[in-house]
């Protein structure tokens, strides 16, 4: 197993350098790089699956000739749980990317290498067991992503997006620096096993972790880079970023919980609040977007919120009555997996639409389902999944979180904080779900249904096979994980147990997924039977009847044009009269603050005014200051 880890890492590295070898023939290098990456991801699946099943971590340690830190890898259940979506999503988006870039005339570009670095970096993030190594690969990952975002850098807006992404990721990482320095200073080592022994002062660390990892995960307020970077990036990449890269932040939080051996109840309250905020904020903002990829980016914020709700329920439950939290954690983990699948699929679908119509504004689109049926069907399916409708996988994970909170409710007979929190969780989950439905009906309806709203849809068509196949595979996974939710749910529970610190752990928790997961496939079957029989009934009754096509009833108005259709803006008219372009957090907080810092600090530029006599004066004054210091000291 250890060898497999090392092989995977070295193959990613190889893939990163592949274009250098084929510098003369870019087309070949593209394919070979992609294939290498795919193979590497494939190999990475083997240890992950075996670890998940056997639950025996794979470890590898190597003395490292750096002043601090060591090359310590460890693949435990938690890592494995994140590696599986990582591998699947990256394989598929590599394939998709091949199709996506088939006929762009760019010569040699860093795309392949940076994709390999991004994926490899995420892989390393998940398995690194040493603070320094972690930070190193974390930065590698972030910057590879930056170069991928800059892929279409001829478009002016992309440069801005790239810069915002850089700023966000760097500020986030600054918090991680503090976190690890503080932590290692308490544990006097950067090794995770050492850090796990730290007892006191975990609260501060937790806040730092939330800030640092939250900026990557896109907690509401720290999310401002998502709606910039995801649309700017090529769709094959934005799928990867939104599907799995932002999950690295979630991984970080999980890893922190795993390593910190005592939890406070307020941790749960805080992250639950974050979840509510992100979920509602994200979905409301998603609802009023007019750019399809921006909307999907905000929807990622919403799903991160749902995951946070799960974590919050988990922490609260655990800190109250040991075994209560499991369901919440399992739900969060399960949703990580599911969201990775359908969000990548959605971005691929959006990518094919953009590829075919060269616009991201949904109000220019419409009626695409006739022109690109495969995309439409898969997109519809992913939408259903992300809205948590049965029988898709989204429903399974949200059900998990619901059950977690309901379990807390039903185990307490009198008022206490957990009860209140789980009521809040249930209410906000429901609200989020409702609005998610609203916004995805909008996106799907306006884009694919009705009639074309403008010329761009004229020669739209389904993408090439290389782009279709990944979407279909993902769709298949979404249904599979929805119907057969029982098994992944059980695995999620098994993984969740490893999170709970030994101080909290009690024996005799049933690690079987709740029975309702058995019901899902049955009920879905029943649903299909019912639908089928209804169809049969309908056909039978219509057999000897006349079926005609006629104009629509438009209140008697009989020259409707396509541009009279309800636009996306008017669809979400009840929420916001006109779709807003700038992000509220950006407008309210970040731009003013950064402007202030910029203005106040760039006033020092007056110092450099060019008059050498005054420069000498500075020296004299500095001298006087120092002398006074030496007299008082």
């Amino acid at each position, binding site marked *: 197993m250890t060898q497999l880890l090392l092989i995977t890492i070295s193959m990613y590295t190889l893939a990163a350098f592949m274009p250098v070898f084929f510098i003369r023939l870019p087309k070949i290098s593209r394919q070979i790089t992609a294939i290498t990456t795919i193979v590497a991801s494939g190999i990475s699946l083997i240890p992950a699956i075996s670890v998940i099943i056997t639950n025996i971590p794979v470890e590898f340690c190597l003395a490292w000739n750096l002043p601090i830190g060591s090359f310590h890898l460890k693949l435990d259940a938690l890592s494995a749980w994140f590696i599986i979506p990582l591998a699947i999503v990256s394989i598929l988006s590599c394939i998709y990317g091949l199709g996506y870039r088939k006929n762009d005339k760019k010569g040699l570009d860093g795309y392949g290498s940076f994709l390999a670095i991004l994926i490899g970096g995420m892989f390393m993030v998940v398995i690194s067991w040493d603070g320094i190594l972690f930070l190193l690969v974390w930065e590698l990952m972030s910057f590879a992503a930056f170069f991928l975002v800059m892929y279409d850098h001829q478009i002016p807006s992309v440069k801005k997006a790239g810069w915002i992404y850089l700023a966000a990721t760097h500020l986030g990482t600054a918090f991680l620096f503090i976190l690890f320095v503080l932590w290692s200073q308490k544990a006097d080592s950067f090794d995770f096993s050492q850090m796990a022994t730290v007892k006191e002062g975990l609260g501060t660390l937790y806040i730092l972790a939330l800030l640092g990892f939250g900026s990557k995960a896109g907690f509401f307020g720290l999310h401002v880079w998502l709606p910039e970077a995801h649309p700017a990036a090529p769709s094959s990449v934005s799928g990867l970023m939104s599907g799995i890269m932002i999950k690295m932040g979630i991984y970080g939080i999980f890893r922190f919980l795993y390593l910190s051996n005592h939890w406070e109840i307020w941790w749960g309250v805080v992250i639950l609040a974050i979840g509510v905020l992100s979920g509602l904020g994200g979905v409301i903002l998603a609802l009023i977007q007019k750019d399809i990829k921006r909307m999907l980016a905000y929807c990622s914020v919403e799903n991160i919120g749902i995951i946070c709700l799960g974590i919050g329920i988990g922490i609260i439950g655990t800190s109250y009555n040991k075994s209560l939290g499991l369901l919440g954690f399992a739900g969060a983990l399960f949703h990580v997996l599911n969201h990775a699948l359908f969000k990548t699929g959605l971005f691929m679908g959006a990518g094919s639409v953009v590829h075919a119509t060269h616009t991201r504004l949904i109000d220019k689109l419409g009626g695409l389902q006739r022109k690109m049926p495969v995309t439409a069907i898969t997109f*519809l399916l992913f939408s259903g999944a992300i809205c948590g409708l049965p029988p898709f996988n989204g429903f399974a994970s949200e059900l998990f979180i619901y059950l977690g909170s309901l379990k807390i409710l039903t185990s307490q007979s009198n008022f206490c904080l957990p009860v209140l929190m789980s009521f809040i969780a249930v209410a906000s989950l429901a609200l989020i779900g409702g609005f998610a439905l609203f916004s995805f009906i909008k996106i799907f309806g306006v884009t694919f249904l009705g009639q074309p709203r403008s010329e761009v849809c004229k020669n739209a068509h389904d993408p090439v096979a290389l782009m279709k196949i990944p979407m279909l595979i993902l769709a298949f996974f979404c249904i599979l994980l929805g119907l057969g939710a029982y098994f992944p749910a059980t695995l999620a529970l098994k993984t969740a147990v490893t999170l709970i610190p030994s101080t909290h752990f009690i024996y005799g928790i049933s690690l079987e997924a709740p029975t309702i997961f058995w019901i899902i496939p049955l009920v879905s079957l029943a649903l299909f039977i019912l639908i089928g029989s*209804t169809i049969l009934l309908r056909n039978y009754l219509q057999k000897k009847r006349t079926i005609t096509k006629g104009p629509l009833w438009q209140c008697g108005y009989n020259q409707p044009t396509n541009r009279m259709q309800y636009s996306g803006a008017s669809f979400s008219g009840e929420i916001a009269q006109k779709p807003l372009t700038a992000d509220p957090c950006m407008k309210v907080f970040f731009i003013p603050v950064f402007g202030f810092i910029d203005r106040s600090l760039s006033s020092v530029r007056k110092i450099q005014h060019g008059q050498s006599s005054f420069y000498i004066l500075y020296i004299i004054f500095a001298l006087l200051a120092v002398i006074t210091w030496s007299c008082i000291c």
Partner: protein
Amino acid sequence: MLNFLSLIPLILALFFAPLLSGIINKTKAWFAGKTGPNIFQKYKDLYKLMLKGSVYGENTSWLFKAGPIVNLAAVFLALFFLPQGGNVAFISVNGDLFFFIYLLGLGRFFTILAAFDTGSSFEQMGASREAFYSAMTEPVLLLGLSGLGFLSQSMSLSTLYMHVENIPSLANAISSLVFIFGAFFIVMLAENSRIPVDDPTTHLELTMIHEVMILDHSGIDLAFIEYASSLKLWLFGSLTIGLIFRLFFFSFWVQILLFLVGMALIASMIGIVESFFARFKLVKIPYLLITSFVLSALWIIWIIL
């Protein structure tokens, strides 16, 4: 897990569901001092529609046809989870209430998409409203149900609505039920597009919500839609009336009888409301829904303190 005895109320529901709208209309007519339509009018409509051919709007796609079917199937399936009159539902398992809610969501999803598929701005307008209001009703329902879960310390829809012994005092229980009953009643009105949220008998498309979505459906499809909506009314009605049935339990058959009476009462209550209220302005409707949310929140506070 499966309770075959409860197939009986289920079948009754299938039969009596269309009757509710008849009762409603009768009540309204009585209040208006008219004779009003026959109480079995709905059955006649359905029958007529079943025998009609259909007209499909130009360039509508398979989704347009799929909408009514999936909706009907989903609502029908939801019926299997529904405890009627304090009896255990056909399927009862921990957490099935979420299944219940999300099945309805699935049905709604397809109805709205079908409306969107026509490309007629009116239907799309209706779709938008429907999506918005249902998004606001869902939390009310779930909050209320989880509150019941807290009360009954159980996680399945049937057990939530099951009769609980050791109620401290009937008065207390009733008083605690007032809020949630109100909340659920409003939800029922909204979900089934009754006055004051929506007026099924209006003739101005601009003000419709549910009706406008199905403007272009005809024949058997329309029949499906109509039947599904009456089933839906039954569902919500029984959720609402069920709150009261938690307070007592005599025996299976008695319960069923009482339950049917209760449904009739609910229907006539709707009729009364419809004849005493005018339809609200569209901008006012969110306030009504928020009111219901506040009611359920109040109820939560009431029970946990």
